[in-house]
């Protein structure tokens, strides 16, 4: 965060440690809530950390600053990851993470903008985030502002028709201020994406829709940072990062095990998970 600590303080080890802490917070808050998508949250932790503690220029002190970068968690079910990172940046107290999914909490099961300052959109109904992001990016172009709009999408989410409506329009309007990061963990709630509804060649699809596409290792912070540098030369095209990730990444017994897509961890599993993240 520009407004918190200068970027140079975040070396690779620091960022890796932040990612570990974010995973711990995700596990703790979803355990407290007895629900929440920790697997889907884990797959985008490095993406969020490399953004919020680096490339993304939000404004913690003035969350409605018209020149701030915008972040849209289009895969809204990964809200725990977003909340953990936002708390880490100082948008709200870390203790508040315990209130996830509770009645009256600002931390709704899926993000609701009007409840939590710092959120740029509500999300959760899949596909709507990227479309709303197109609108925000368009307003930036109209007003000649320099901000960028970062969107994180799930790969399963790309089965929604509106994603492709949005993709087509972003290219039509030449929105080079729009960056979509596809968290490609190859799993969705009922099984592998290839079994449920094959996505085919995602890179070819986004390219065919007129986007500049970059492949990136989604858990490799250095690779993410290098890619964020590369995309700065793209002009007149929206940018898609296809991030290869592992659902549940960070805790071996959870990784790629769809049992944990929604099932809360029992006490023993919780203890083991926290040991991995110690």
């Amino acid at each position, binding site marked *: 965060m520009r407004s918190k600590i200068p970027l140079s303080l975040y070396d690779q080890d620091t960022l890796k440690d932040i990612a570990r802490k974010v995973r711990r917070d995700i596990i703790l808050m979803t355990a407290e809530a007895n629900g929440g998508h920790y697997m889907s949250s884990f797959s985008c932790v490095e993406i969020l950390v490399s953004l919020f503690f680096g490339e993304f220029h939000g404004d913690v002190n003035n969350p409605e600053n018209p020149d701030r970068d915008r972040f849209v968690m289009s895969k809204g079910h990964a809200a725990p990851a977003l909340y953990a990172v936002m708390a880490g940046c100082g948008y709200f107290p870390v203790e508040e993470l315990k209130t996830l999914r509770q009645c009256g909490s600002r931390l709704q099961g899926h993000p609701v903008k009007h409840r939590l300052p710092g959120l740029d959109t509500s999300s*959760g109904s899949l596909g*709507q985030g990227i479309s709303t992001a197109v609108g925000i990016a368009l307003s930036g172009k109209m007003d000649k502002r320099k901000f960028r709009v970062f969107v994180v999408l799930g790969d399963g989410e790309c089965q929604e028709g509106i994603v492709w409506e949005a993709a087509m329009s972003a290219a039509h309007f030449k929105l080079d201020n729009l960056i979509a990061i596809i968290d490609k963990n190859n799993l969705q709630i009922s099984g592998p994406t290839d079994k449920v509804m094959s996505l085919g060649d995602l890179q070819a699809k986004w390219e065919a829709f007129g986007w500049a596409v970059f492949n990136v290792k989604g858990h490799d912070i250095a690779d993410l940072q290098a890619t964020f540098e590369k995309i700065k030369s793209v002009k007149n095209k929206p940018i898609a990062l296809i991030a290869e990730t592992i659902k549940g990444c960070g805790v071996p017994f959870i990784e790629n095990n769809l049992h944990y897509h929604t099932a809360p961890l029992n006490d023993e599993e919780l203890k083991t998970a926290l040991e991995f993240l110690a």
Partner: protein
Amino acid sequence: MYNFSQCSHTRDAYGQALVELGEEMPNLIVLDSDLSGSTKTAKFAKKFPDRFLDIGIAEQNLIDIAAGLSLSGKIPFVSTFAIFGCGRAWEQIRNTLALDNLTVNLVMTHAGLSLGGDGATHQSLEDIAIMRVIPNMRVIVPADSVETREVIRYAAETKGPKYIRISRRRSMDIFQKEEYHFNPAQYPVIEDGSDVTIFSNGCMLRESLKATQELKKQGISAKVINLHTIKPLANEIIISEAKKTGAIVTVEEHNVIGGIGSAVAEVLSQNHPVPMRIIGVNDRFGGSGHVEELYRELDLTPEHIIRAVHEVMKRR
């Protein structure tokens, strides 16, 4: 006496209002889905090409792009045919626009049966029901060109999501430009009367007023009220009318389920129940045909209104 043949297209008034407001409000943006020639947003597009966005045939994206623009302080007006804008994109309207109370003005045209020849797929008889059930949403049906212009100005100056329903059919000219001021909490009395109150709006005011002329010959004094704002509903006006005349008829170009009849019944049944009849389309689809033919086929004529008046008065 009314001049029933003095009619005009309210969508023309909408297009004109956008151009006027566009001059005053630099943040006003207009979006359409490839139908700007029909919805009349084309006038604005010609005048302000930089503030007009054609999203193509993609209504879901149309709504959420408008939401994104609103989040950055723009005042979007969004138009396409009512069935596609409200129907296909309903969940975008609920989850992105209304949940955060975003200022987006949905001005959907060709509502009701008015697309005539195009038939059932293009007609919209459910839009009021599915819009008014969404929290934060305001629902308005302007009566004529003068009221349309005023409603569009009100929408541009008021926060939150709104649904404004426009017909393709010409509406009877009722209001005088200089005298009329739109207030969502006040329903204009178009025809005064003491035996029965008819609540109607939009182009159905013409049918309602025709019915009152015939009723007059029969010695029945029917009051016609322009219920332009279905949400928020001015409950006290409706209750007060039920107390005054004790017999209510509602008239709408919409399914009898969920429209203005339902809205009025929800208020009266809980506050001051009186005999009531709902004139509308009886839970069926429309079809191809001239609008006037369709009105006969779907029980929307002045004769149907007259029969309903007799019935509620008998039951009183």
